[in-house]
């Protein structure tokens, strides 16, 4: 026992090959998984060794949770309290959306913002300031955070809210874990009458129609569009708009279902322009002629991909990249057209092309959503992919847009800075609260927010 105690105290740990959800890039990293807040603080106070980055479920796609050492929140996953009158829940940073929903849904309570997967942790959701299908009416995840406890790089804790330690709050929401490790958070909940969603699907013949439908349904609660990004010419941007709202009828129940899983990496060549084109044809055809309303269990509605565990393995051993950006409304149509044409010409495309409208941005310094239209594409990694993405960066910046850091694995510092004008404010705070460079990721180095060399020269 003395041995295991010693291990816990010093944070000796296992080394493993780690990546983000996109499986590109990989690094060799040590994983530190402290059992409680105190031992997490000890690790930061101790301050020795290679630098670290907090890591939740590892569901960001690129390199934002990769460093020589990662500080895992997996054991900080206790619920602390549920206040049914104030409609808040407080839990450790490692608690996943799935666990919260499991507790809340049977009681008629629901999370105000949900990402496309329920496997993300609260810490990760705050660090990426995630958004859902309802951003245009409800804002992003951090707009519903009452407060959180932040462990600063010094090992000191600070309680942060929109009014208390406001600076830390605005830097940490969307700050990709660079300002410290979130220990726990208090989240506002909303009441729902049932666990079901009334869902409706409307086909759109081209980009113009897709965008018009998104605008037209801007006061519906959940709105998102799937786009066939392999369609060309007059069908460019054709898709299906999915609308949803909480159903008034239906049970409040928790259902657990058997998941299918992708047990091993499939050869990447199985996903090519023909198979994906075929998939997209079928998907569009399925929705083409019907304009139906269905009652769908919330889990199937919000997290369809979670039922295929390990779907990221479908992209082959090289992994894949997601590419998500937002364009302001006035430049959206021309910018999206140019993007889709460029992608369509390249012959590279994806199962998952998702279009949605965002409402106004919040005050957080590095939060991604801002008013306009966002498009998400995913691409199997191939050596000639990176130049295509560089070309898309130019289109996005020219249209006044920016990219989502939780999806990014390759953007340049210049592209980042143009998209996020608050970057210098963020960096100034970062330098002040973390002068020794204790926290940093592969991404933060690339984006010029930290310097990999700084720490190694100090040791």
């Amino acid at each position, binding site marked *: *026992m003395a*041995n295991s105690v010693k291990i*816990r105290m010093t944070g*000796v740990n*296992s080394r493993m090959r780690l990546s983000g959800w996109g499986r590109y890039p990989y690094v060799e990293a040590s994983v530190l998984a402290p059992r409680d807040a105190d031992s997490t603080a000890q690790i930061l106070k101790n301050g020795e060794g290679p630098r670290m980055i907090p890591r939740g479920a590892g569901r960001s796609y690129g390199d934002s949770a990769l460093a020589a050492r990662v500080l895992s929140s997996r054991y900080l996953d206790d619920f602390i309290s549920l206040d049914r009158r104030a409609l808040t829940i407080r839990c450790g940073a490692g608690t996943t959306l799935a666990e919260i929903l499991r507790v809340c849904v049977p009681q008629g309570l629901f999370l105000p913002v949900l990402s496309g997967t329920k496997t993300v942790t609260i810490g990760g959701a705050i660090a990426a300031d995630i958004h859902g299908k309802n951003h245009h009416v409800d804002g992003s995840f951090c707009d519903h955070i009452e407060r959180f406890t932040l462990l600063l790089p010094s090992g000191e804790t600070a309680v942060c809210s929109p009014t208390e330690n406001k600076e830390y709050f605005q830097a940490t929401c969307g700050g990709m874990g660079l300002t410290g490790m979130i220990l726990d958070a208090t989240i506002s909940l909303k009441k729902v009458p049932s666990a079901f969603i009334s869902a409706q699907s409307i086909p759109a013949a081209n980009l113009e129609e897709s965008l018009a439908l998104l605008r037209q349904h801007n006061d519906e609660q959940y709105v998102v569009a799937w786009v066939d990004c392999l369609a060309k010419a007059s069908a460019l941007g054709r898709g299906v708009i999915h609308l949803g709202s909480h159903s008034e009828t239906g049970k409040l129940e928790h259902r657990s279902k058997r998941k299918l899983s992708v047990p091993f990496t499939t050869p990447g060549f199985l996903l090519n322009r023909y198979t994906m084109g075929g998939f997209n044809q079928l998907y569009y055809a399925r929705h083409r002629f019907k304009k139906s309303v269905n009652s769908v269990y919330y889990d199937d509605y919000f997290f369809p991909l979670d039922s295929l565990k390990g779907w990221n393995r479908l992209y082959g051993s090289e992994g894949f990249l997601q590419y998500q950006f937002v364009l302001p409304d006035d430049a959206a149509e021309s910018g999206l057209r140019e993007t889709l044409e460029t992608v369509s010409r390249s012959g590279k495309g994806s199962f998952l092309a998702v279009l949605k409208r965002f409402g106004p941005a919040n005050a957080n310094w590095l939060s991604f959503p801002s008013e306009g239209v966002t498009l998400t594409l995913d691409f199997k990694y191939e050596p000639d992919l990176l130049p295509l993405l560089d070309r898309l960066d130019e289109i996005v910046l020219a249209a006044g847009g920016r990219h989502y850091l939780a999806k990014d694995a390759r953007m340049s510092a210049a592209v980042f800075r143009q998209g996020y004008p608050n970057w210098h404010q963020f960096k100034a705070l970062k330098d002040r609260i973390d002068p020794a460079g204790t926290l940093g990721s592969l991404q933060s180095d690339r984006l010029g927010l930290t310097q990999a060399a700084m720490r190694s020269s100090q040791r």
Partner: protein
Amino acid sequence: MNILLIGAGSAIATAVARRYAAQHSSLFLIARNGSRLALQQQDLLVRGAARVGTRVLDLLNHEEYETAINAATEFFDEEDIDLVLICHGSLPDQEAAEQDFDLARREIDINGLSVISLLTRLTPYLKAQGRGMLAVVTSVAGDRGRQPNFVYGAAKALVSTYLQGLRGKLLPYGVDVLDIRPGLVDSPMTQQFDKGLLWSSPELVARQIEKAIRRKRHTVYVPGYWRLIMAVVRSIPEAVFKRLKF
């Protein structure tokens, strides 16, 4: 269900307790770390547990067993205990334990004798109830003495063998005895190991434990494929096995 959980702070116990809390069980938790217990109590209540009681106990301190178990039976008052689940354990440094008998004795105490002591005290209680289940987390390490961890394995084998006998003894009383043998579980106890394909999460292990309890099994390997792996390991002739360092 009324559940007494000993070694409640372990990763497997934590995951099992959460499953039963969601089913509105009443739980009494015994563990070494008091501050951890307080957090766990809150967690289980939010997850839906009907009632949660706690008691701090260092299992190396045998004199305190009696009062801890009394606290548990008082907590459940007149109601039957449906399940006693003993989960505690410690993974010793094998090399050190081979060279230092005091350390070896301590490890055998915590992984072996403490369990026998608890079972001795709990058995009369369950016999009197005339129902319920005693479930103990042992290990696949008890199936054969392997060079890297035979101190731990010997202590776990001690418990497994004891449980086999006890199972028969308690049969006329309607009390079930379950021996749970996990394989490699990714938990704080095993944090120093590099994890490969055969490692499973405490949550997966907990799901299978719950199923084994529901089905009143005798001996379960979790995950189930460890039954096959250990059958192969046991079948290796000793003349070969003694040369293996795994």
